[in-house]
Structure formats: C-alpha cells, structure tokens
C-alpha cells in the first residue's frame, strides 16, 4: 500500500500527553470510587433497606449504570484507537486470497472489532463480494459482527471476569465460523441482489493515509462519544430490566423455566429472545441478573446471542443486498448454532 501524507491544520490545543494523562487519572479515580459511592447513595442517602426488593433493585441500578458507562468509555476508546490500524480496506485484501475455512475464521475474528451498523454493513458486504471473497466467508463476518463485539466482551469481562468473556467470544466465533461454512456450502449466490454481482471486480484499491497520533486519539474519542450516546438508551432499559429481575424475580421461577432440570430451557429462552432486539449493551445487564438467579451458563449465553445476532432491523438493512430467501437461511443457521452453543456450554460448564 502506498501511503499518503497530508499536512494537518495548525491547532491550538492543550498538550496531547497532558490531556491523556488527566483523562486516565480521572477514569481510575471514578472507577475505584464508584461502588462505595453508589452503596452510600442507595442505603444512606436514600435510606433504603438492605435486602428489601426495592432497595436491592435500586442498588443494582445505581451500581451498574456508572460502572458500565465507565467501562464503555474507557475501553472503547482504546479499542477504537487500535482498530484504526486495521481498516476494512486492509482486512479485505488479507481475506481475498484465502480458502473457505481459513477465510471464515479470519472473517469471524474481524467481526469482533467491527461494529455492525446500517452505515457500515452494506458497503462492507458489497466490498467483500466485489473483491471476490466467497459468500460463506462474508456471512461468517455478518454473523459475528453484531454478536461478538468489543462492547459485549468489555462488559462481560468487567462484570463477570475474563473467563466468561473468553467463553462467550469462543462460542460466538464458533457459531459464526460454522454458519459461514454452512452457508458457503449451500451455494446461495443467486439470492444476492444482481447489482452487487455487477460490481464484482470493478473496484479500485484504496491508498493508505498517514494519520498522526493526535488525529487517531481525536477520532477514537469522537467515535466513543457517539457510540456511548447511541447505546445509552438500550443500556438504561437493559439495566432497569436487570434491576427488576435482580430485586423481584423469584429464583424458583427462573429455575423452573431456565434451570438445569428443564431439558427444553435452551430452546425456550431462544424462542423468547428471537423477537426481542437489543445490542450487547442492553442485553448484558439482563444476563447478569439471570445468572445471579441461577440460570446455567449455556442457557444464558444462548439467550444473549439470540437477542443480539438475530434482529429485524439487521434483516431490513441486509435486504438491500440479499433476497429474503437468503435472510431466512441466515436466521435459521444462526438459530441452530445458538441452540447448539447453549447445550454445549451447559454440558461443558457443570
């Protein structure tokens, strides 16, 4: 890749290193002060009863909202900064020459760092097809992108520790890879819109543009601000539902529906989750509360994956590049994959 270097405009800003240092220190102070502060607020200032339904629900809410927001702001800034070095244009050239298996694995992993949004999905899909990347490999990316992403991993890591985050990542990548391989085998090429095929081989090659650290940090921060603003409503709803479950849902009921004794727990929660749509940020607080009520890991993961990976808004976006038949196959393959993951992890994590 040739690199284009451009002169930047003269800016008057506080020194970059100082700004970064102040931001890091402020974040750390907030992170450590957050739990005692929210505890004090719930049980001393508001005077709520420890152990009461309402007190526990409010405590969960006040503890989780700032904690999750801090995690998102801190880690997404860092992840976005790193992602800046791997633009999709570069990844596409890396994927282009690969076979189905290696390609699906690489595409699924690439889905981790790429957020799925209406702006990026269609150009990425067209760009992949244009470069001659097999359809199955493209789908491995489409499955993994909304399901396994940095927001999900950061939240799982922060709330439950690295074990569960890595398990979720492995499960999501497995579903995406196998889904991609299966769709590749089904030869669904005729269900891609004709105008997409017409573009194949007509694209140019992007040149690499040199960015300064200041540009990169500025971009990462702008992106994080946008993203946090966009997912905050989901987060507040998710945390509220999580708080209600945490404070009020009887453990017996959760156990009866989702517990180990019910062999159909996985399909039941997946059926409940299919029509629901939220992103990872809104789903994880609910997951947190369900796990707290004793729902097994596999069942909970299946619930979360079904909510994030299968959604009507995503299908409407994809309809611009593929036909309904292929969307139906996509939904079916992912659902089967999610059911499989649910049973597998219930079996593995006893």
């Amino acid at each position, binding site marked *: 890749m040739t690199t*284009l270097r*451009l*002169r*930047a*405009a*003269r*800016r008057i800003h506080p020194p970059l290193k100082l700004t970064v240092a102040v931001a890091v220190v402020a974040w750390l102070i907030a992170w450590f002060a957050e739990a005692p502060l929210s505890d004090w607020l719930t049980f001393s200032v508001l005077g709520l009863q420890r152990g009461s339904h309402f007190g526990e629900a409010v405590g969960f809410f006040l503890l989780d909202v700032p904690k999750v927001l801090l995690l998102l702001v801190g880690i997404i800034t860092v992840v976005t900064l790193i992602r800046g070095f791997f*633009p*999709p*244009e570069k990844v*596409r050239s890396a994927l282009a020459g690969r076979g189905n298996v290696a390609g699906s694995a690489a595409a699924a992993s690439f889905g981790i760092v790429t957020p799925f*949004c*209406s*702006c*990026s999905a*269609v*150009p*990425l899909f*067209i*760009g992949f097809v*244009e470069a001659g990347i097999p359809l199955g490999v493209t789908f491995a990316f489409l499955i993994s992108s909304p399901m396994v992403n940095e927001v999900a991993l950061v939240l799982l890591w922060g709330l439950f520790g690295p074990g569960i985050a890595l398990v979720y990542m492995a499960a999501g990548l497995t579903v995406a890879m196998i889904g991609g391989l299966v769709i590749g085998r089904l030869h669904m090429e005729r269900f891609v819109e004709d105008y997409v095929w*017409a*573009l194949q081989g*007509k*694209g*140019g*090659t*992007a*040149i690499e*543009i040199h*960015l300064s650290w200041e*540009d990169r940090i500025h*971009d990462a921060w*702008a992106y994080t601000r*946008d993203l946090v603003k966009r997912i905050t409503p989901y987060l507040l709803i998710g945390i509220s539902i999580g708080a209600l479950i945490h404070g009020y849902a009887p453990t017996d009921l959760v156990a009866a529906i989702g517990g180990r004794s019910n062999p159909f727990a996985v399909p039941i929660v997946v059926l409940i989750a299919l029509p629901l749509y939220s992103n990872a940020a809104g789903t994880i607080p609910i997951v947190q509360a369900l796990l707290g009520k004793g729902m097994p890991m596999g069942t909970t993961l299946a619930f979360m994956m079904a909510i994030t990976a299968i959604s009507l808004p995503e299908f409407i976006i994809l309809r611009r590049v593929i036909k309904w038949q292929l969307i139906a196959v996509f939904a079916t393959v992912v659902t089967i994959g999610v059911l499989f993951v649910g049973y597998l992890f219930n079996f593995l994590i006893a």
Partner: protein
Amino acid sequence: MKTIEVLGPGCANCVRLEKNTREAVALAGIDAQITKVTDYAQIMAYGIMSTPGLVIDGRVVSYGRVPSAGDIAAWLTER
C-alpha cells in the same frame, strides 16, 4: 476551481463531513464544486468501504473518519 466529492450513503458521519467540507471551502476562500456521491459503484471504484470518504480533484484524501474543517481547508490550499 477544485472538485470535491463526499463519498457516503448518507449516514450521520457523511452529513457531518459534508458540513465540514463546506466550512473548509469558506475557510480556504477558494472556488470549489462539492458533489455528494451516494452510489455504491462509484464509491467502490475508489476502493473504499469505510465511509465517509473525501476526494479532492480525483485523489482520495480521507476515508473512514470525519476530518475537521481546518484539516480539509489545509488540504484544499496545499501546493
């Protein structure tokens, strides 16, 4: 006279880039024609997948980010 193309299907960032570009043209005090390119075939022809992209006189100067009006003005007055 500069030709400027703003590449993007019309998402929030594309709108922001167009606004910055108009500001930059005013800032640089030059004569420029700004075109919005929403057709995927034309965007792909530049090899770009991460929108929005900015093309000045046929040369891609930025993609996948929203440069500031100041930066764009500096690129416009380059050379």
